[in-house]
């Protein structure tokens, strides 16, 4: 990395600084910096899915058709109660095995099953190898499912908080049921939902630190590896227990994300509150 700099800049940096720049830009550290993309990707995709699941869940919950309402209630009640770590471990594994089971019913023959050396999947052809990309997507879906259940409740509550008079007035002006729903209830719902959704979003961001549980070399795993004491010159720089330094960087990263999120939600809140006289102004 250092040799990319022009010579006069290299001379200007002291030996000490040059050493630290070299250390902090070695392949291991670069891999750590690059791993931030996994966390950011999981947060963004997970967040988007959570919003989608939340809207669908809230729609189901306020449905007039009992079975749909039951599905919505079941989803928000059960998934909110299960610890996110458990769901995180359970969902990708169950999904993988289901896919493998389905593929096995299609491609396995008695001969290939007999030739298989492992107890699962039934035959080698049915094995689905999950790499980082697959796990990342499954992790994002898990995050979306778990936090979508919270978003369901938030959005459902917000839809009921829209003043009834507004909807009645809209009907009185001759708007159809669909127009009343989209242009009045959903449009005004955001003002009540956003504070709750910002909570859900921050919880989801925190949960992205669990990615390493799914074999993803994420920021937490690299911080662990880089911070662990090293006594062997053959392995790299000899140093003591530096985990706290690396954890501190993660701490600052998450605080930064929180700060940015707050700004973002403030802007959204202002936008959602346009033309509304009540709570949004507060």
């Amino acid at each position, binding site marked *: 990395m250092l040799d990319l700099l022009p010579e006069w800049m290299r001379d200007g940096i002291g030996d000490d600084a040059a050493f630290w720049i070299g250390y902090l830009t*070695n*392949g*291991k550290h*670069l*891999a750590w910096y690059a791993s931030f993309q996994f966390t950011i990707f999981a947060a963004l995709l997970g967040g988007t899915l959570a919003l989608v699941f939340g809207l669908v869940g809230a729609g189901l919950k306020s449905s007039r058709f009992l079975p749909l309402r039951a599905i919505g209630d079941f989803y928000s009640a059960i998934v909110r109660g299960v610890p996110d770590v458990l769901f995180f471990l359970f969902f990708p594994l169950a999904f993988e095995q289901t896919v493998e089971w389905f*593929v096995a019913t299609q*491609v396995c023959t008695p001969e290939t099953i007999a030739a298989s*050396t*492992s*107890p*699962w*999947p039934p035959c*080698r*052809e*049915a*094995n*689905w*190898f*999950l790499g980082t990309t697959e796990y990342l997507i499954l992790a994002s879906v898990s995050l979306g499912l778990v936090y979508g259940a919270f978003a369901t409740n938030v959005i459902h509550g917000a839809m009921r908080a829209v003043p009834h008079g507004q909807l009645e007035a809209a009907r009185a002006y001759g708007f159809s049921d669909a127009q009343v729903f989209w242009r009045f209830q959903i449009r005004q719902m955001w003002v009540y939902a956003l504070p709750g959704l910002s909570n859900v979003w921050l919880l989801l961001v925190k949960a992205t630190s669990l990615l390493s549980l799914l*074999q993803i*070399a994420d920021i937490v795993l690299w911080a*662990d*590896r880089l*911070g*662990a*004491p*090293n*006594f*062997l*010159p*053959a*392995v*790299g*720089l*000899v140093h*003591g*227990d530096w*985990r706290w330094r690396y954890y501190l960087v993660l701490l600052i990263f998450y605080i930064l994300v929180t700060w940015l999120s707050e700004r973002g939600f403030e802007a959204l809140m202002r936008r959602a509150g346009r033309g509304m006289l009540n709570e949004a102004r507060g």
Partner: protein
Amino acid sequence: MKKLIIVGAALAAFAAPATAQETVRIATEGAYAPWNFLNDAGEPAGFEIDLANAICEEAGITCEIVINDWDSIIPNLLAGNYDVIMAGMSITEERLETIDFSDNYFPPDPSRFVAAPGSNLDFANLTGARVGVQGATIQAGWAEENLGANNTIVAFSTADQAMADLAAGNLDTILADGAYLQPVVDASNGAIEFVGEEVLIGDGVGAGIRKGDAELIETWNTALDALKADGTVDGLIAQWFDGMGPFFSE
């Protein structure tokens, strides 16, 4: 049309393992220097990486090293995510119930205790001590069985984390492979020292291979025999373990 392409790609992805048989995937932990670790460039390196490359060259096969957590390294072998484990894994009766091993490429290595200087642990009747081990290792099993009743056994997911907690004063002692601890103690400038007596567990370190994958075990053993005879294995052991051995050649 687009849908057809997607379905085709998905089928190809599922069918891939069958055709990719020529490439043998070797799993290692990457956190157990000098056996296997990630070097400054972030790539796998160490004794077992060099040995794996030598074996694959000897056997004339293409190999790929993959990193997998220690905890799930056997389950993922059984699931077929890779074909061989070379991760400082000792051959034990317990593991032989689920997987097979090649011949050992590192002789039985006594496990040893380390502690901070002046720890004064009474190993004859150790009580109330916090003993660190790496989870799912032979040491973890031994410690649970022999010390578990009167002491707290703390299991870590990597050996590095156990060392970090010993350095931080959260543990009284660590039980681990002697060959792993030796360079650590040597390089620690007296911050960590050997204590107590050696404990003999396991039948040496070998490559873990799925039960019934007889052809692959055969390949591994043939290559290992040749590399032991010509001194390659001993050379690598001496190189990575500070002049230990020779164990396998005359």
